[in-house]
């Protein structure tokens, strides 16, 4: 066990691309955590998708041994946390396991919105914060301006900010010294009953479920019977270790230490992030504060392109859930898309990641329906139901009113793009709460309906600001508004997968765009096709696809039989990807493209 006074637990806060992973790599190398031949970039991001996107999805830790200028050898535990708002709860748990943070700001870019949110989480967690200015080797680096921004936008004293280059290794020692001298050692009572914070957990094909813990009080030893205080589940610990970053068994984790355990646990769902681990024999009287199960806020339907892949999708989802308990799914059937699952996610990035992992790791071809937020439907009988899928909307006569979730969005944008960003927010029913300047950059705070953001707000924001705006949000509250379900009917039959919830004022234009898009996408057929958008029984937009007039092979003789028959067989296979609505066949590609259609 390590002397508690020689432990420093820290995390790194940075905007995407500001150099967090490179700095982590440098710290690991400097402390000899890996041998040079084993080293690869982004050491801590183990999933392909993390490495490619340059993001961290699961929390990772690494234990470093650093011989400081004072001659003593310190144990530094680096907790690499997901930086994205979707994983805000995971971030806050990781931060709760540390006493300090390194704040990385790209000296050529300045402070970004995501950094801001995470620094506030760190300040709330009483962290000592060490600002570093990265990429000072770049010609565009402006150290003074970046310092000013840290002071103006974040409100932190940046006088002692360390100018570094993670790429070249400049001033890495200064960062390590700052960690040792400026961060406090962990508090906590080694003689008290065990309290360990469950920081994260994941499924490993060899080890089963691996739990990342921070021991707050007491010690955690191999062979101990432990109990999860929130779920009540009990296990015997079979391994106790640390990551160097390779896993290394150490037998016991003392107070203030960070490491992993395994305990023959089958499902990640039994290991809730934020839960408190204690011993069976001498349990702690009360759990650590702050446990809350993470709730999905964005839902969408996932359907296999090939209906025969349904079972494969089910298995894949259950395997993926072993490793990520924060998403939920239940079977759903759609007249348009067949059998699939309604899935709930922590946010849009989470949705994208899960979808991408399903397609990549499980080789599935998926159709995702438009993301929907969770509406609260207040019925006339006083009941309140949560609506995850517009297709399940109750009969309007039974509805008293509908509430939708709102967010508080923080956007940082260079001056010259501010107008475009403000317009985008106004178009999306936003309410401006704050507008301040830091140098040539503006920080705007808007309240926005989440519904208006889930679709493509982020893409639009990037596009109207030429990529310069950064954005972060937190869920604010639920508010009542005039929301309606817009249905799409093809030859009078509703196409469930295309129905959406929309504000009444925008229903007509949205309906028009969808109808026009479908007219482009549905091929002419034997019969005329009417496409309508309707609110309840009222049609608000309509398009007609005229009937096919000529579609026949001019020549077909004895030599053509086999070839043309094969063509027909191919057509028949293609039809499996079509969905039949009465007389009308709609290609799946039409659904996908229609779901992407926007009216602005």
């Amino acid at each position: 066990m390590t002397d508690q006074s020689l432990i420093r637990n820290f995390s790194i806060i940075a905007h995407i691309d500001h150099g967090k992973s490179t700095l982590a790599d440098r710290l690991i190398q400097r402390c000899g955590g890996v041998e040079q031949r084993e080293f690869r970039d982004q050491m801590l991001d183990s999933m392909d998708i993390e490495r490619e996107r340059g993001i961290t999805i699961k929390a990772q830790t690494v234990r470093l041994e650093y011989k400081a200028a004072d001659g003593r050898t310190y144990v530094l535990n680096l907790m690499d946390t997901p930086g994205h708002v979707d994983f805000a709860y995971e971030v806050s748990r990781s931060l709760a396991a540390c006493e300090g943070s390194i704040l990385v700001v790209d000296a050529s870019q300045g402070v970004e919105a995501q950094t801001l949110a995470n620094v506030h989480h760190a300040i709330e967690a009483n962290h000592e914060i060490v600002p570093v200015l990265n990429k000072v080797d770049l010609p565009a680096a402006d150290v003074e301006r970046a310092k000013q921004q840290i002071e103006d936008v974040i409100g932190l004293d940046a006088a002692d900010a360390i100018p570094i280059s993670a790429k070249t290794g400049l001033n890495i020692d200064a960062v390590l010294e700052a960690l040792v001298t400026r961060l406090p050692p962990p508090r906590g009572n080694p003689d008290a009953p065990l309290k360990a914070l469950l920081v994260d957990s994941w499924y490993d094909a060899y080890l089963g479920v691996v739990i990342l813990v921070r021991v707050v009080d007491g010690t955690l030893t191999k062979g101990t019977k432990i109990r999860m205080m929130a779920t009540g589940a009990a296990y015997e610990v079979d391994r106790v270790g640390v990551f160097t970053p390779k896993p290394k068994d150490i037998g016991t984790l003392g107070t203030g230490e960070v490491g992993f355990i395994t305990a023959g646990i089958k499902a990640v769902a039994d290991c809730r992030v934020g839960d408190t681990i204690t011993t069976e024999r001498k349990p702690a009287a009360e759990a650590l504060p702050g446990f809350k199960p993470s709730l999905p806020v964005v839902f969408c339907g996932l359907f296999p392109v090939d209906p025969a892949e349904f079972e494969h999708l089910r298995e894949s989802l259950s395997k993926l859930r072993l490793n990520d308990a924060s998403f939920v799914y239940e079977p759903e059937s759609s007249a348009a898309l067949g059998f699939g699952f309604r899935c709930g996610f922590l946010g849009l990035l989470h949705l994208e990641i899960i979808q991408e992992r399903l397609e990549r790791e499980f080789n599935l071809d998926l159709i995702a329906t438009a993301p929907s937020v969770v509406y609260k439907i207040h019925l006339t009988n006083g009941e309140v139901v949560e609506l995850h899928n517009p297709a399940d909307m109750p009969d309007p006569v039974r509805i008293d009113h509908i509430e939708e979730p709102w967010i508080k969005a923080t956007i940082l944008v260079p001056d010259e793009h501010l107008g475009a960003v403000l317009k985008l927010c106004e178009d999306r029913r936003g309410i401006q709460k704050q507008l301040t300047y830091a140098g040539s950059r503006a920080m705007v705070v808007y309240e926005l309906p989440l519904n208006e953001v889930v679709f493509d707000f982020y893409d639009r924001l990037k596009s109207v600001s030429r990529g310069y705006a950064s954005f972060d949000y937190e869920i604010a509250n639920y508010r009542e508004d005039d929301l309606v379900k817009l249905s799409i009917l093809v030859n009078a039959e509703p196409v469930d997968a295309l129905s959406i919830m929309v504000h009444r004022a925008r229903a007509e234009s949205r309906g028009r765009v969808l109808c026009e898009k479908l007219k482009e996408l549905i091929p002419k057929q034997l019969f005329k096709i009417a496409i309508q958008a309707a609110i309840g029984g009222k049609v608000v937009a309509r398009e007609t696809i005229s009937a096919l007039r000529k579609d026949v092979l001019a020549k077909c003789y004895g030599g053509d039989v086999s070839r043309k028959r094969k063509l027909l067989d191919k057509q028949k296979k293609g039809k499996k990807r079509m969905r039949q609505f009465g007389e009308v066949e709609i290609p799946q590609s039409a659904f996908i493209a229609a779901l992407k259609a926007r009216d602005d």
Partner: protein
Amino acid sequence: MPPAAASDEAFGLYVHWPFCLSKCPYCDFNSHVRERIDSDAWASALVREIDHFAALTPGRRVTSIYFGGGTPSLMDCSATATIIDRAAARWGLADAVEVTLEANPTSVEAGKMKDFSAAGINRLSLGIQSLEDESLRLLGRRHSAREARAAIALAARTFDRFSFDLIYARPGQTIAAWEAELREGIALAGEHLSVYQLTIEPGTAFHQVFGRGDLVLPPENEGAELYHLTQAVLGDAGLPAYEISNHARPGAECRHNLVYWRYQDYVGVGPGAHGRIAIDGVRHATRQEKVPETWVSRAMREGHATVESLPVGRDDAVTEALMMGLRLAEGVDGARFARQTGVALMDAIDPAAAARLVAGGFLERMPAGVRATPAGRAVLNAVIGALLD
């Protein structure tokens, strides 16, 4: 396995001649341009394949022979005689046997018509394609409109029966211009006319030109109008469509091509030729080697150059019989269909789809079977697609 067709049914022999003087930009048939061709060697190879297939189909009598290509009118007249005689010797020819030769209307062929007739050809099919010089150039044809008219007149004098082809829906062609050209064609025609809508096939020179957008086909609506106009004008002239693109006075239909559309048995000899024949009571799909030089050496060495001879499965037979039969105005005969495929016609098609197609005016049930209406034939790909769901 579907049972074999009854032996008293029509039985066709297709002979493929793969050579042309030049390749037309719209043509995707197996045709090749060669400096010189040893006509005798080719005739010997074709004869060997005839011997081979005759041995596989004992007891059948040939009801039609069709020389297609390529440009079979480039063959020596004596070679066609050799082939016809060999078919007669091996299978025997029906009394009213139809022997068709495809011919180009150049002066070269015009000079050979009498000899072809003497060799046993009794029906000529001329590749006229257009009666306008400019269009003939666009289509890459080697003849002029004047030569075309002269060849038609000579064919009418020389053969009992003749037909010619026209191509419409050409780039830039107006409806009025096509109507005038079609009416001239009717005035020149005998009892049979084939009119094809221009389509762009992969692997042709036009595929590139049209792919680049240098030339464009009339839009679907205009194509449909041209098609329906063609049907009406030819119907009024006493040449109704008996198949999508083929028109004849009743009784003057091409009997050989009817074999294909009625899904009866036919032997295919020559490079790339396909056949559908009963071998030992089992219907087979046959295919010959496609490359001319490889074909000829294999046929000489092994007696035939068959590269594939596979039993036709029930599903494939159903698809093929419907796909071909619905092209005909007479439709698909239920009894023949059942005999050919082993499946009752009404069991082969999706009843719900059939009901929708009947209600929509695309399909008609008849006492003896089913047929596509004129409206249904215009969109036959979609009709067959719906039926075979």
